[in-house]
């Protein structure tokens, strides 16, 4: 087990270098130039060329790439072209806000998605089942920014319970107050995914022979559903959590924009528009690391939920 975890965590390094390299080349293949973006339309070609020189963009691509790799191996992502500040500093300032949003979004998604999925599966074809499936379909089809604006209109503008600008405030409750609406907006969409996974997985397990046996030998239905069935139904759901982290992180981009939260999503969108290569590379590598870590955690959780899985 320990060897497995170590192996998985060590695999982060090549993964990151591959992700970094892909981002490095894709960004440079996309036209658009950081110097032009920074200096604006009135700048002459000469000033743009001078800035490219200062940023080291006039060097051969291979030299820039080797430079990037060596620095990345040392954990140095360089300095942002746009602000001149170290990329690591910018990422570490933005990352906690995004992580906070992702955590609460996932929690909201789980708290709504898992129970709804269970009830829908236990009472298939009931009114509750149909209603929850329709709502889930709505949640899946609705872009998070649209849901965000609807939530803002209701809770911030009409009821005045929450601020429109969800900038984190000091203190636990201050942060919670600010993150509530963004997390709800992100979590509701997530809940739709989770509800559907739980429902279909549980429905499948409930058809298994051992469930019929449990019912036949007189085990109370609640114990059959929540002890025997749910435990087995959750295994595929846990995989889904790992997979959905990517969509969740992508969802933060729009959620952060609509709720005006300063996080990684906004940092990356701004960097892409500005062609701020070091920030894009650093940010996406951090995302890749997060996804690898979470998926490793998911694999470990497997073993805890399902004793038949062994790591060698």
């Amino acid at each position: 087990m320990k060897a497995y975890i170590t192996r998985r965590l060590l695999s982060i390094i090549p993964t990151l270098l591959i992700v970094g390299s892909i981002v490095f080349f894709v960004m440079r293949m996309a036209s658009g130039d950081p110097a032009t973006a920074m200096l604006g339309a009135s700048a002459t070609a000469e000033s743009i060329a001078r800035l490219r020189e200062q940023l080291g963009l006039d060097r051969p691509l291979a030299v820039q790439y080797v430079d990037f790799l060596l620095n990345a191996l040392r954990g140095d992502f360089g300095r942002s072209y746009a602000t001149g500040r170290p990329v690591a500093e910018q990422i570490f300032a933005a990352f906690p806000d995004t992580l906070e949003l992702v955590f609460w979004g996932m929690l909201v998604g789980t708290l709504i998605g898992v129970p709804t999925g269970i009830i829908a599966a236990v009472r298939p074809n009931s009114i509750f089942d149909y209603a929850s499936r329709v709502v889930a379909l709505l949640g899946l089809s609705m872009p998070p920014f649209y849901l965000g604006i609807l939530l803002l209109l209701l809770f911030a503008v009409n009821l005045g319970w929450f601020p429109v600008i969800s900038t984190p405030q000091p203190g636990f409750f201050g942060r919670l107050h600010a993150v509530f609406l963004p997390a709800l907006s992100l979590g509701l969409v997530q809940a739709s995914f989770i509800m559907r996974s739980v429902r279909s997985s549980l429905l499948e397990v409930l058809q298994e022979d051992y469930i019929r046996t449990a019912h036949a030998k007189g085990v109370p239905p609640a114990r059959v559903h929540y002890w025997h069935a749910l435990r087995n139904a959750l295994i595929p759901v846990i995989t889904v959590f790992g997979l959905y982290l990517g969509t969740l992180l992508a969802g933060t981009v729009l959620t952060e924009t609509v709720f005006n939260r300063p996080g990684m999503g906004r940092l990356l969108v701004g960097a892409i528009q500005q062609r701020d290569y070091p920030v894009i590379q650093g940010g996406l590598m951090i995302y890749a690391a997060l996804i690898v870590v979470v998926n490793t955690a998911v694999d470990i959780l497997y073993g805890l939920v399902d004793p038949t899985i062994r790591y060698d």
Partner: protein
Amino acid sequence: MLTSKLRAVRGAAALLAAALLLAGLSVIGDNVAMAQTRHVLRVGSGVADVGTLDPHFATNFGEYPIVKAIFNGLVDLPAGTVDIERIEPDLAESWTISEDGRTLTFYLRRGVQWHHGYGEFTAEDVVFSFERVADPAVGSPWRSEVANIKEVRAVDRYTVEIELYEPDPFALLRLVGYHSGFIVSKKAVTELGDEHRFHPIGTGPFAFAEYNPRRSVVLTAHDAYYKGAPKLAGIEFRFMPDTATRELALRTREVDTADGDSEQIWVDRMRSQGVIVELVGPGNGYFIQYNLIKPPFDNLKVRQALSYAVNRDEIVQYLGTSIARALRSPVPAGYFGHTTEGIETYEYNPQRARELLAEAGYPNGFEFEVYISEATSYLPFAQLLQEQWRRIGVTMRLNVIDHASYHARIREDVNGVIFYNATRLPIADVYLSQFYHSDAIVGKPTAITNFSHLGDVVDNIDALIEQARSELNPDRQKELYAEAQRRIMAAAAAMPYAQRYSAVARQPYVDLGYDLVAPNQFDNLFEHYIYNEKTSINR
């Protein structure tokens, strides 16, 4: 019995009167307290972040109103106007211009203090500032704006002489607090180095306090400001790139003013909710340039045909009639030197367009492809023209790319038709020099934004632009500018079609501290509200 009742009533009345008096007094007290309270103004800025607060590098449109509140120039335009006839003293109290128009002498205001204890503003700072912008090693994007300055000399601590290569009737306008005209502190820039980018030291009504990446910039009142202590305690510029969020935050009063959306529907909706929406001029000019070296656009008749097929009224209708007006000249209306007199404006005439196409050898039209930015200030216009040209048989395929890529691609000379929109210093010279002078042709080291190749290929208008630039007689100068505009349109190098205002919004309790030129509309160079020492919140 009756007496005691009366007494009770009297007692109650006295109590009530006392309570009312107290309440009244407390209301008055509150009012006094309110009058004395200095509020922090919260601004919903339409950008996601700023890249610098150094005025000699600020190019992002969200950076302008911030640097304008922090810095001053030697001279300024009256707040709320771009009336170039009424340039006011700012850091310079007065000035003289030599007879040959080549030397400007500025007498500086004494006792002006830099923010955060950086001492007194002097002639040294002025010399340093202009030399800094002009220094190629510094790399300011505004360097071309000081190209006509030969030397800046400090005559004494409070006198500065600026010597020009050529006389320039707009020399003063080019020195207003805008782009290259902002004066920075020699001591602060030297001591802070790179830090100055996010720790600017100015002389303006508000001093820099903090920068929170992607969140806000906070300024505090500079009480030693030479025009008097600001009425506001400070300004917080909050970065809110999403229009819907800015709108909602303005409605819940989480921000007091905000950058708007230049769309008629937005303006009408906000006004119906009691928010004041103003339109800022002279406005963004929208035009296309034809690439004169790319077939079939190298054929004058093809260009003329396409221009005749553009229906300006339709475009203005799309934008909204209070937001936009038709543009008929290469220089936008409201800019010094703009004219439509004697100019071929290519009024909508699809019949003539079809005839010209046939004469050019394309009786059935033709197809071509252009790259176009996905930005809302580009793509919809390309789609409108796509539809208008389809009606005369010309098919324009749109290859939609992101905004940064678009700007890179058009500088690589790939498009036959280039869509562009721009706001510049409102004198014909800037537009003409940047878009139509041959030095500005893309691909050259001196390139700016001449995508048509006009100047190298067809009818050289360089001499006209240069002559006009140093012509001191305003009437003669206007004639030269008019001739330049006539030639650009005669060569069909460009097709200007619309001019669009920027919408800005505020709650009625925000008093800007200056008068607007017209109801619901005013002019400034920044396309945002400008906040000064007189700006206040009256709640």
